[in-house]
């Protein structure tokens, strides 16, 4: 091969390839977070990085963005060798990243925040004009003089995206960008991303929402246990086949079967209350809460985080007691004035969103964590005062065996379990107590796809056994596939309740944004 041919080949490659990654590996001690990862991203391509939690997606993009240094392998950006020592190298080479957790200052304005991300720039008129131009071009609407703490999650994310776009990146990395967005906001984001790709910019899109990946991305790299297992065209795949490739085994369909005739449709648990004031002024006040659940039925409550879900959960489980006993009735018995323990004894159990620090104590062992909520069952507490370690351990063993919790022993600390395993343990802990009413908040948040499926099946089985379930969640797919009836919470108010069969994602999105909720 003559030299000129080689150059021509390289040029043609460079016009096509944006980022090339060859044989990248990263070890933490003995653990291979990435092993021999090879991938190529074309100019203008929207490339999905798919995988369960812990599959190595974050490690890979951290190496691309210069936060971590690879132990082996090489990278090529725009046809020249690329090995960033830090994010600032990456930025100047044309790589930008939008993180899952926003790095913005709450007390500063949008303009000031953007100026802070740009070296040597000040929040002056000239910068404002440039920003507005970028906003115009990509249809990103944001008001520059508003302070970040007044903005919702979607708007904050736009600020981050604008900040990155101001650096004119060739490659943009987005880490789970839609986890905090409503369907409408997601649509807007996709429009922006399409436009960026039309301009020839490349995008790495990390997600585990398979539907989105199919709608948006040109190609998808699937990762499992730190390695690339497949590169596919997501448009040629079904959500199911993608999911199976991602987890490496066949999934059982999670679908709500019709509520069996045996269970009466009559409400067993009703809540009817005017205002609910949380203990902390940081939580949202609830207004006019009315809801009811029949035995064997699952009620979903959707909503963007921070709209009163915490207060609602506390009020339902009894961490927050209400003055009027009749505002909450279970099987004819008023219990709004009762505390957590008393409600638990009457069959109302719960599993909060925050696993470590609320549902469980990270530094205590699994069997000790059993005592927290299950102490009144199976003789764990003798004479109301003495703890029987043996009974608590047996209980923990049973939870582990029944719900397929992967852990070395009941003596493992709660913090040592993965998110999915801990959640299976914590929900299992309540299910062994045979709840009549089960309140659960974001049960699959930060949980891998397989555990997610398992948890959904746990809930469905519980409902089939005749329990009433209230599922508070931000995950629309979860709500639509698991629940029987559904409503939304916005600014502390509940929408009307609809049958899930009649519900569309668009309609639910509108409800989440507070439309149709009369105030």
């Amino acid at each position, binding site marked *: 091969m003559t030299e000129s041919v080689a150059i021509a080949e390289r040029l043609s490659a460079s016009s096509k390839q944006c980022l090339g990654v060859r044989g990248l590996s990263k070890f933490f001690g003995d653990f291979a977070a990435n092993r021999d990862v090879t991938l190529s991203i074309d100019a203008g391509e929207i490339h999905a990085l798919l995988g369960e939690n812990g599959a190595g997606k974050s490690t890979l993009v951290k190496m691309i963005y210069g936060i971590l240094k690879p132990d082996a392998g090489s990278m090529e950006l725009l046809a020249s060798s690329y090995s960033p020592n830090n994010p600032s190298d990456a930025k100047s080479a044309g790589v930008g990243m939008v993180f899952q957790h926003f790095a913005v200052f709450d007390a500063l304005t949008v303009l000031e925040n953007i100026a802070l991300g740009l070296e040597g720039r000040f929040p002056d008129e000239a910068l404002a004009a440039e920003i507005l131009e970028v906003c115009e071009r990509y249809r990103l609407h944001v008001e520059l003089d508003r302070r970040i703490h007044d903005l919702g999650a979607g708007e904050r994310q736009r600020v981050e995206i604008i900040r990155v776009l101001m650096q004119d990146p060739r490659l943009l990395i987005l880490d789970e960008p839609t986890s905090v967005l409503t369907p409408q906001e997601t649509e807007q984001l996709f429009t922006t991303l399409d436009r960026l790709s039309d301009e020839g910019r490349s995008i790495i899109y990390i997600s585990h929402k398979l539907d989105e990946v199919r709608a948006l991305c040109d190609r998808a790299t699937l990762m499992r246990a730190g390695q690339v297992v497949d590169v596919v065209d997501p448009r040629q795949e079904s959500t199911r086949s993608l999911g199976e490739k991602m987890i490496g085994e066949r999934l059982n369909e999670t679908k709500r079967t019709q509520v069996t005739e045996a269970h009466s449709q009559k409400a067993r648990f009703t809540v009817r209350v005017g205002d609910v004031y949380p203990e902390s002024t940081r939580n949202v006040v609830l207004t006019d809460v009315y809801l009811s659940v029949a035995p064997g039925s699952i009620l979903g409550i959707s909503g963007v985080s921070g709209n009163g879900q915490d207060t609602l959960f506390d009020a339902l489980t009894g961490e927050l007691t209400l003055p009027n006993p009749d505002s909450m009735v279970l099987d004819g018995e008023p219990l709004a004035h009762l505390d*957590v323990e008393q409600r638990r004894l009457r069959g109302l159990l719960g599993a909060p969103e925050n696993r470590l620090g609320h549902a469980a104590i990270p530094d205590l062992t699994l069997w000790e964590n059993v005592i927290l909520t299950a102490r009144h069952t199976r003789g764990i507490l003798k004479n109301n005062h003495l703890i029987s*370690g043996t009974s608590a351990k047996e209980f923990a063993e049973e939870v582990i065996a029944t719900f397929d919790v992967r852990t070395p022993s009941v003596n493992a600390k709660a913090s040592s379990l993965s998110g999915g395993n801990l959640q299976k343990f914590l929900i299992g802990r309540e299910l062994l107590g045979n709840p009549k009413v089960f309140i659960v908040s974001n049960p699959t948040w930060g949980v891998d796809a397989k555990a997610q499926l398992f948890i959904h099946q746990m809930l469905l089985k519980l409902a089939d056994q005749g329990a009433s379930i209230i599922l508070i969640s931000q995950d629309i797919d979860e709500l639509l596939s698991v629940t029987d009836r559904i409503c939304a919470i916005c600014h502390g108010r509940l929408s009307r309740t609809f049958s899930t069969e009649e519900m569309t994602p668009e309609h639910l999105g509108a409800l989440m944004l507070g439309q149709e909720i009369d105030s």
Partner: protein
Amino acid sequence: MIMIEARAVTRWYHEWIAVFIALLLTAATVSVLLASLGLDPISSLQRIFIRPLNSVYGVSELLAKATPLITIGVALALGFRAGVWNIGAEGQLVMGGLCGGAVALAFWNIDGFWVMPLILLGGTLGGLAWGAIPAFLKVRFNANEILVSLMLTYVAILLLSVMVHGPLRDPTGFNFPESRLFHDAATLPKLFSAGRGHLGFVFALIFAVLGTWVVKRWHLGFEMRVTGLSTSAAKFAGYNRDRTVWMALLIGGGMSGFAGVVEVTGNIGQLVPNISPSYGFTAIIVAFLARLHPLAVIPAGLLVALSYLAGEAAQLSLGIPAASTQVFQGLLLFFLLGTSLLVNYRIRFGRVA
């Protein structure tokens, strides 16, 4: 480059290795200090730390000093586990001594087996009442128990002084600020023929065993521990924070009061203006030295008691001021806190990855 990184796995014995390292570092630093004074470190260390234990008298003295440290240390370990920071055990001890002493003086000329239990009860209640004040203020007004209990210590010390200078002064004592001597029925029996070691030490051992049982088996102990680890998990479990605050301060107050009355009836035999060389504060070191394990409070209490004897020995045989006790204790606490970092983190030498 030296880096500190989190350990992937923490094992139970790491805590005790850290304690051991702290003891070594303390001994090393004391050696350096002694050498800088022109003394031979090895023989001096032997003279101040080993020789005091060479006789029945020495051991007996050690037990006498360890008694209040262990009694209070166990109570503080329970309270600190619950995240309730009772810093005023010294004041609760003084109130226990004062109230128990007052009962003893009320029966100064009466013999009877029932006198002693009554005195112990009086002292315990005195400390309990003093512990109840910060508990009430915390529960009712969310007042900081650290400040309230600490300030009440000085109130208690002054109150004792007023009582000993006034109402409780010995009528036949030539106006010295001392009470009458207690009746024999109002003093605790000695354990040995020499020294001041008394029955109170046996009580202290029983408390340490009881404390362990409370931590391991009693639901209330678990409840207190959970509350100390995470208030929101405690709330979800249905545990009441106020109950934990009350329990922690009442146990702390009651047991410190008991330690106080045991000190005056077992050791001093009368009320004087100064009944404690800061046992209540030193017990905080003891509790942490024991890593808040009630049973481990026994060796920790003995060790710290030794530092008191060592201070006296340093003064007697080396001519170093008795304030060296505080130096020993200060160094020990300093190294303990420093090495506790090693339980959850490790130091790595090398280049940045």
